[in-house]
């Protein structure tokens, strides 16, 4: 299965036989005081441009854009920040909001084919987001959770995913435009969280064969020495079927490139060696 996305001038294809697509996570104010304050004050141009530039330079193939800082008007702000990011870098974007009106406002200004983050398994979300995905010809991230929260087992996550995918198909959204987020929760809160996510990834891959994403850094939330846990999990998740994780590209790229090599997606290790030559200081 191949998902095509596009910026104004460039196409990007996500699939399991290509190198892992890294979606940069940093334009998101959750837990980032400076960015949150910048978005709240409206003086965000410099910090947003810098985050965009640095993530792409660090190897992000796409960028997630979320402006959900306390008190901001997302419907007004999200399209403005999306324009700023498009002006700075030429990579496809992931339009990230829980507010369907903000998503629609951003879709109106977006140039290319974006990924919408996200639709959930409850009525309001399905009814408002899926028609937008169809109307604007976008791709969409499916979150297998509903009004009861995130299920703590793969079985229930699959049931919700089934329901959402069925609804997507009814709406006329092709399977290749569906990306499923298998939901990483912290192993610092529940030590089985990693296993549940890996099991969900395996089942989604078997049942649908669609592209799979993951907010991969969540896995280590609250723990010390997060990078060791993040790297180990990212490798396992990619091996299990994740094709486009949402990550801090500067930290995750090394691990992703090594993993791609180990999974036979990097002939003669050319990408890995090139990366090493250009980034010796990171090794």
């Amino acid at each position, binding site marked *: 299965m191949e998902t095509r996305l596009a910026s104004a001038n460039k196409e990007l294809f996500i699939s399991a036989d290509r190198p892992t697509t890294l979606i940069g996570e940093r334009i998101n104010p*959750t837990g980032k005081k400076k960015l949150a304050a910048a978005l709240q004050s409206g003086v965000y141009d410099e910090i947003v441009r810098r985050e965009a530039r640095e993530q792409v330079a660090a190897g992000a193939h796409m960028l997630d854009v979320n402006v959900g800082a306390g*008190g901001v008007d997302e419907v007004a702000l999200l399209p403005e920040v999306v324009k700023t990011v498009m002006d700075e870098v030429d990579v496809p974007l992931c339009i990230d909001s829980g507010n369907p009106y903000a998503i629609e406002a951003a879709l109106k200004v977006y140039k290319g084919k974006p990924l919408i983050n996200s639709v959930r398994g409850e009525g*309001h979300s399905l009814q408002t987001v899926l028609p937008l995905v169809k109307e604007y010809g976008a791709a969409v991230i499916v979150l297998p959770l509903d009004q*009861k*929260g995130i299920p703590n087992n793969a079985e229930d996550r699959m049931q919700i995913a089934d329901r959402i995918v069925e609804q997507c198909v009814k709406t006329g959204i092709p399977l290749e435009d569906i990306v499923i987020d298998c939901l990483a929760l912290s192993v*610092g809160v529940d030590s089985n969280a990693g296993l549940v996510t890996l099991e969900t990834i395996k089942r989604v891959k078997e049942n649908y064969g669609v592209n799979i994403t993951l907010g991969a850094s969540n896995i280590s939330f609250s723990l010390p020495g997060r990078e060791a846990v993040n790297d180990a999990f990212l490798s396992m998740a990619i091996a299990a079927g994740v094709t486009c994780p949402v990550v801090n590209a500067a930290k995750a790229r090394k691990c992703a490139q090594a993993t791609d090599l180990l999974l036979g997606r990097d002939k003669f290790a050319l990408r890995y060696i090139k990366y090493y030559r250009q980034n010796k200081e990171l090794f």
Partner: protein
Amino acid sequence: MGNLTQLAQALVDLDEELVNKIVKEKIAAGEAPLDIIKECNEGMGKIGKLFEANEYYLSELIMSGEILKGVMNELEPLLANVEKEASTADVVVIGTVKDDIHDIGKNIVVTLLKGTGFDVIDLGVDVPAETFVKTIKETGARVLGLSALLNFTFPAMKEVVDQLAAAGLRDQVKVIIGGAPCNEEVRQFTGADYLAKDAATGVNICKEIFGKC
């Protein structure tokens, strides 16, 4: 806090086996259940402080809650005859507000509150304002915790506070808001009494309100 009892120290060391062994011995020796709980609370207090100082991590905090739960299961049958120290006034009502379904943070707060000895009524996620108001009215609870992760749910928090006022309950209950995007401006907007920036702060605010500090 210098000299913890053997039981409190075992709890701080997260040594479940030792904690259970000491508790069993104390029960066999006829020690009052409330005294045992008091010792455990000292241990929990120490763990809370270590967590605030970034010396203990969240998973350790949760583990301590699990150990305490086991102890409470042992003690509860014995408490039936004892006048419960915790009156209805020690009840905390909590939930994620309408149109938001995020509950990881809220669940952590619930675990910690229970571990600290509060009675918690967890209303779950996507809770309408009416349900919060009804529960406060029925239980006479003095603390209400409102959680949200999505920022467009702030009006839902304000709605709860407004409806409490409309029902004449505003003076009876202190409202605490929490969740990643909450800040002082949000607190003012919603009319809540307190802002809890993390789970440990939330528990401390509850202790303060109930004069348990």
